């Protein structure tokens, strides 16, 4: 099922996540992080940080901190089981830290297809700002939708 091109430009409701140290330690554990600046406040301070830094890719998940994180796919008629992550990019402007409230604003930047619509690409652009309105990062991600047509549709 083709994604409605009218979705291009649509912005989803901003999502704000309070970054607590426990969550950052959990993330560090999940990725086997060994650098203590990401888990130990003293180590972070000794390295010149005011608190535990938010690691480079943690920002991706902020927009998922809502009751139905995949609602945007559902609204576009996309089956989550057909979605693969195609690409991801961050441009960094400032570090974020435990204790910050980070807000992610995401808009659909583009929708396009390849292989006669068998593959569709949804490009989303996000800004991440902290509680002072300081820009932390800009994120861009592409998800690949693997469309499977039944035989009738193929014919």
């Amino acid at each position, binding site marked *: 099922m083709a994604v409605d091109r009218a979705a291009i430009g649509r912005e989803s409701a901003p999502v704000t996540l309070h970054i607590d140290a426990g969550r950052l330690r959990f993330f560090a554990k*999940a*990725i086997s*992080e060994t650098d203590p600046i990401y888990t130990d406040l003293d180590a972070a301070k000794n*390295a*010149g940080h005011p608190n535990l830094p938010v690691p480079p*890719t943690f920002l991706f*998940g902020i927009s998922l901190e809502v009751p139905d994180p995949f609602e945007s796919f559902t609204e576009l008629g996309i089956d989550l089981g057909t979605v693969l*992550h195609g690409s*991801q990019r961050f441009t*960094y402007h400032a570090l974020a830290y435990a204790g910050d409230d980070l807000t992610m604003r995401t808009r659909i930047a583009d929708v396009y297809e390849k292989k006669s619509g068998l593959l569709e690409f949804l490009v989303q652009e996000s800004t991440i700002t902290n509680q002072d309105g300081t820009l932390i990062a800009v994120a861009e991600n592409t998800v690949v939708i693997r469309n499977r047509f039944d035989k009738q549709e193929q014919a």
Partner: protein
Amino acid sequence: MTSLDLEVSSQLTPLEVAPISRTTLALFAGASGDHNPIHVDIDVARASGFDDVFAQGMLSMAYLGRLLTQSVPQERIRSYGVRFSSITPVHGQPTCTGVVRSIEEVDGVRLAVLDLQVALADGTVTLQGDAVVELDEE
């Protein structure tokens, strides 16, 4: 903080990660906030045409992020992007590598462009990317 000692063609010290277990996938789902069941629930994975669950792409990007932050202070990273080229199966063992592609000076700051890659033990490249890092303190 001083200048970083990177030259064109310098290799970053590779980061080898233990084979990815199902436990790791579950922990990363919770910690990252990506609760897509295709990575933790084999029934869901099979219903979508996969033989088994597979690793979140962002898990590999996080490992590659560790390669970056063990090589340069995080505040020196200006941009970091990847393309996911292959699925990482359960028990896949990623190794993250990076090499300095070029160094240029912009507004008095030397910037290094790094080529980055994650590959599995069988040689499959799962992720390719790049990063721009500041060599001098701003």
